[in-house]
């Protein structure tokens, strides 16, 4: 018999799980508790949060892909350096593209795009997954983790922008009649501590639904 190995379909159950697990049970922010600092910093408005989510997704996915392709050639002694070079190169390219095409958003994100390099999610996925898995799986894992990160960012940003500024994407959502009746925007939502509180509430909500995420002790 020639080709005995059965080719695995691109979106087999196992691969689909790579995509969906980080959205809930394996979420990088609420379960792995990685990448919290940027989640606090860029979520005061919805638009930068989405751009940040997309940027991180692109960086995690492609650095996972590149490192996975190289995984058998990377000398273990310098693997962290190689990983960092791959991540840094991708982040710089993303940063340059943002500066060229969505200048206003890139100004709001300021240093946080550069700080994707030190975002623990990226390094964590490279070490834990891409170094030991095939390119396609690694790519999916990167997309999944990026989306899991982005999901939390977007949820937090929706609450913060809606209650902090009364807008979404800069458009007024809360009608003027509310303000006339004495409603005021809550400035506390704009400040970073509120993001931490919201992330905490999301973790609480998620664990109350998912008993197996709760520590036995």
């Amino acid at each position, binding site marked *: 018999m020639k080709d005995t190995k059965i080719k695995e379909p691109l979106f087999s159950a196992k691969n689909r799980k790579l995509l969906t697990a980080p959205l809930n049970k394996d979420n990088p922010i609420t379960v792995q508790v990685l990448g919290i600092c940027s989640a606090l910093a860029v979520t005061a408005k919805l638009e930068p949060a989405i751009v940040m989510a997309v940027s991180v997704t692109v960086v995690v996915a492609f650095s996972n892909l590149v490192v996975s392709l190289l995984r058998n050639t990377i000398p273990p002694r310098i693997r962290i350096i190689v990983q960092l*070079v791959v991540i840094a190169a991708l982040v710089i390219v993303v940063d*340059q593209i943002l500066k060229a095409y969505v200048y206003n958003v890139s100004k709001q994100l300021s240093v946080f795009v550069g700080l994707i390099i030190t975002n623990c999610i990226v390094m964590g996925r490279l070490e834990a997954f891409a170094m030991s898995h095939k390119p396609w799986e690694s790519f999916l894992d990167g997309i999944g983790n990026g989306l899991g990160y982005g999901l939390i960012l977007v949820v937090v940003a929706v609450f913060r922008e809606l209650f902090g500024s009364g807008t979404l994407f800069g458009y007024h959502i809360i009608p003027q009649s509310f303000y006339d009746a004495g409603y005021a925007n809550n400035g506390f939502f704009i400040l970073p501590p509120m993001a931490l509180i919201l992330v905490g509430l999301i973790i609480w909500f998620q664990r109350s639904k998912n008993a197996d995420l709760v520590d036995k002790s």
Partner: protein
Amino acid sequence: MFSNSYIFKYSAIMVILVAAILAGAALLLQPAQERNVKVEKIQDMLNSAHIESTTDNAEQLYEKYVVREIVIDENGEEVSVYKGGKFEKGDVRAFNIDLKSQLKVKQDAAQGKTKEKAVFPLFEVDFEGDTLYIIPLQGNGLWGPIWGNITLKRDMSTVEGVSFGHKGETPGLGAEIALPQFENSFLDKKVFDDKGEFQSISVVKGGVANSSIDPAHGVDAISGGTITSMGVNNMLKNNLSNYITYIKNHKK
């Protein structure tokens, strides 16, 4: 299993490859990035003169309304005048002057560290028959640089409008300098008093009404943003003072 020479070769090739990719990306995207910075600068200037613009039409509006770009030296002499796409005098466009480095030159020259002479930009606007003057501003807030533009009316004393920006002042406190409530409090204030003496516009902690400052030359500071407010105060005084002689000589 990997020899030392393999590791060296591997890293060398990797670094060269990555450097080439990054250099390529930077070269390819540079024109778009430079245009963004330019458009932002134009929009800030037009905002202070109350000319509405979008990122798409800012450059056309600039060419239409900014009729003269003037560069003056510290003695108030015109060093360079750029009008209608060509130089009438000198060879420096006010638009290309880096104000921050010129203020540094001025400071160094005052301390005798350099013999260079600082020059300052001034923009003359003809907006539907009305002459306005835009003066760019640069200073320091609490956490980092603040900047802006102040537009004076034909008399070169009354404020038509201001626009401020900042790198990272505290949201809700110092960052309020960039909000319309604060910017609008500058409208119709005067930089010179009735005798023609330079007064600048003071940003007064505790409110102008409770101070000895003439309401024509002062605005209220931001509660909780004292250091940023002082930064705006100093920025106005420091930048506007460079234009005193020029304005006295050219006042209409």
